[in-house]
């Protein structure tokens, strides 16, 4: 085992005393209870505004081109062409080859460039190649790196390999923030998701992230809750705040509000900032804009008034 990365040199007394376990029935019941919160009026406006500020606007397609990415970056900077009071998104998330395009368009805007890396989405490449890929995206100017864990290693019990890879990637990230994608749908249950969450945090993740969006299933409310509880335990034990990114399958403003309510009632207000919470989504933004418009004016607007990018 290599030394723990910066920020995580724990005295033995402060380490998590045990990995702990998760009870699926009670976890899902709590997630359902929180999903039932009724968020109205000004409290909904706050949530919708927050959803945009915490959004990683994402395009991860084989057909992505500089033109497509430039358009998406423009949307991220100013989501609503008609309304300058709508905040910018947190970041634009792209494949490595599109990083220079995104960097060029987003320079000076405050919107970050996030790049997926480490043989996204499978993670099934030699470690050296993954590390090299991260070096390159950082050199091209990515502010954030969304890496995937090696699920093959995790599922075969080679936790050390998973850990070492995260540590190695973190070392070459430099100033870039590291989000570690667990691909929860492939891990086989909440206990494993909790274990992978703690492993990633111990190895130096700045964020833990649910999914690539490429697997059969993506983020769910109980999965996020399971990961938030792991983040809370790390904070309790060490004082360190690790971020959370829910990604995949979040398409409606209503869902986004449910995810935010869960963060609010599990980790508290401190996590309700793009520095510690992200929603990764490709098609969520227009629904949030439409709901925001509706809340403000009391009327629904036709979809033709929101740009498709």
């Amino acid at each position, binding site marked *: 085992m290599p030394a723990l990365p910066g920020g995580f040199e724990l005295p033995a007394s402060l380490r998590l005393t045990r990995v702990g376990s998760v009870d699926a*029935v009670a976890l899902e019941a709590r997630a359902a209870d929180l999903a039932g919160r009724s968020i109205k009026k000004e409290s909904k406006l706050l949530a919708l505004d927050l959803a945009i500020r915490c959004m990683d606007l994402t395009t991860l397609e084989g057909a992505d081109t500089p033109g497509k990415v430039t358009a998406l970056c423009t949307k991220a900077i100013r989501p609503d062409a008609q309304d300058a009071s709508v905040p910018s998104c947190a970041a634009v998330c792209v494949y490595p080859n599109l990083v220079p395009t995104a960097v060029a368009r987003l320079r000076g805007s405050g919107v970050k460039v996030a790049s997926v890396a480490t043989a996204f989405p499978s993670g099934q490449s030699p470690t050296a190649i993954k590390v090299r890929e991260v070096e390159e995206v950082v050199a091209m100017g990515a502010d954030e790196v969304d890496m995937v864990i090696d699920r093959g290693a995790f599922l075969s019990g080679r936790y050390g390999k998973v850990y070492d890879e995260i540590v190695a990637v973190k070392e070459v990230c430099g100033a870039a923030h590291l989000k570690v994608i667990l691909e929860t749908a492939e891990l086989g249950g909440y206990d494993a998701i909790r274990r992978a969450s703690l492993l990633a945090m111990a190895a130096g993740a700045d964020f833990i992230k649910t999914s690539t969006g490429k697997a059969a299933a993506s983020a769910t409310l109980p999965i996020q809750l399971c990961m938030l509880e792991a983040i809370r335990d790390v904070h309790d034990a060490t004082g360190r705040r690790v971020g959370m990114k829910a990604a995949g399958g979040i398409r409606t403003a209503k869902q986004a509000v449910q995810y935010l309510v869960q963060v609010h009632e599990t980790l508290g207000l401190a996590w309700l900032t793009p520095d510690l919470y992200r929603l990764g989504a490709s098609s969520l933004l227009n629904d949030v804009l439409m709901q925001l418009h509706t809340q403000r004016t009391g009327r629904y607007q036709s979809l033709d008034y929101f740009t498709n990018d």
Partner: protein
Amino acid sequence: MTDIVPAPAAWEYAPAPESRAVVTIAPAYGLYIGGEWVEPAAGERFATISPASEEQLAEIAQGGEEDVDRAVRAARAAFPGWAALPGAERAKYLFRIARLLQERAREFAVLESLDGGKPIKESRDVDVPLAAAHFFYYAGWADKLEYAFPGRPQPRPLGVAGQIIPWNFPLLMLAWKVAPALATGNTVVLKPAESTPLTALLFCDVLRQAGLPAGVVNVVTGDGRTGAALVAHPGVDKIAFTGSTEVGKSIQRAVAGSGKRLTLELGGKGANIVFDDAALDQAVEGIVTGITFNQGHVCCAGSRLLVQESVAEQLIAKLRRRMEKLRVGDPLDKNTDIGAINSAEQLARIEELVQSGRDEGATIWQPACRLPEKGFWYPPTVFTEVAQSHRIAQEEIFGPVLSVLTFRTPDEAVEKANNTPYGLSAGVWTEKGSRILWMAQRLRAGVVWANTYNRFDPTSPFGGYKESGYGREGGRHGLAAYLSLEEAGVGGGEA
């Protein structure tokens, strides 16, 4: 990582009240006897109020001895016809009632929260759906009674059942009692609780819609005197009571030697037992549900927490943090977690017991929460450093007040859990399956939940040991309380 973008300073949820417009409350109600609304003989009425605002909701009839007699005679007159109906025909009425409860669910949920103070999310998601589920379930049994008890092929109904229900789950307790009584061919005189009669009165309208024959179900409202008159009436064949152990004992004395059958579902002092290998965050959810569900007005509430000493500190810290998030307030607000205490009387009892906890030296903790000015409210409360001999560890508080004790070994957990006069419920939290079974064998409690708490289902029998009462409600067992199960060939009835 330093914050670049500040988090919001606060995120207050805007009020999200369920509309009261779905339900119409009459200014005054009569008694429902023989399928009709009748005036109480003495003309006496009392007010039912909303415990959240203390506003008067309606005037309720005070049923006297004469009214009870009239109701029992109506039930007696309806009995032969009802008992003689083929089971499949009785089932049709029960199915109809169940569907009507579902169709009018919002109305019942709003009314239940208004009259009783429980959060709308509970009346909407638990009380009303479960009440409907009980009618659906027992409808299914109505034509299969001869197969329910092997070796007892000719079960016969008992006659007139006098049913006295509590204020904590007014509609649900009605369903627990009325559904099996009707399925088995009995007729009913029901006495709802004094402080929460409105859903039972609305239920009479469901009976009318369902076309239930007159007199099969009669509802006589009133206070303890009405209940006593029902218990004492010679025309009643069976008494089913849910409520306090004190009243249960007096009922038992009153029916002794009368030949009346009796089932009692009384108090409890349930223990939630958390082992060090439990999923702690989920155990916290179960503990919170166990003690705050329905403001702790639950006979099977997990009012004691027994936690293994090695994780006690961590668990209690998690528990407190979680309890700080509980939202106490308007029962009709969809975001309310804890509603109003049911009555001024109950609030006084909670306050008295909490004071005894302080006086006896336990450490009290309550989250900072704003309570509304009007109405009856009590914040969630956790006592630590509780000794087994404290009153708050032995007596039923019936409020959102949790007493925390610790244990070192499984044997000690069992001993402490069993060491109260009650025996209604327990919860076991551990990831080890064999330990769950080991504990369940040793806990003297009618219900033992494993890694969950306060889960109810019509198929599952519910009832107590010791001072928690006897008899079972729910499931196949629940039928037995309303049937005469003579040996094959002995009985000659044809129900």
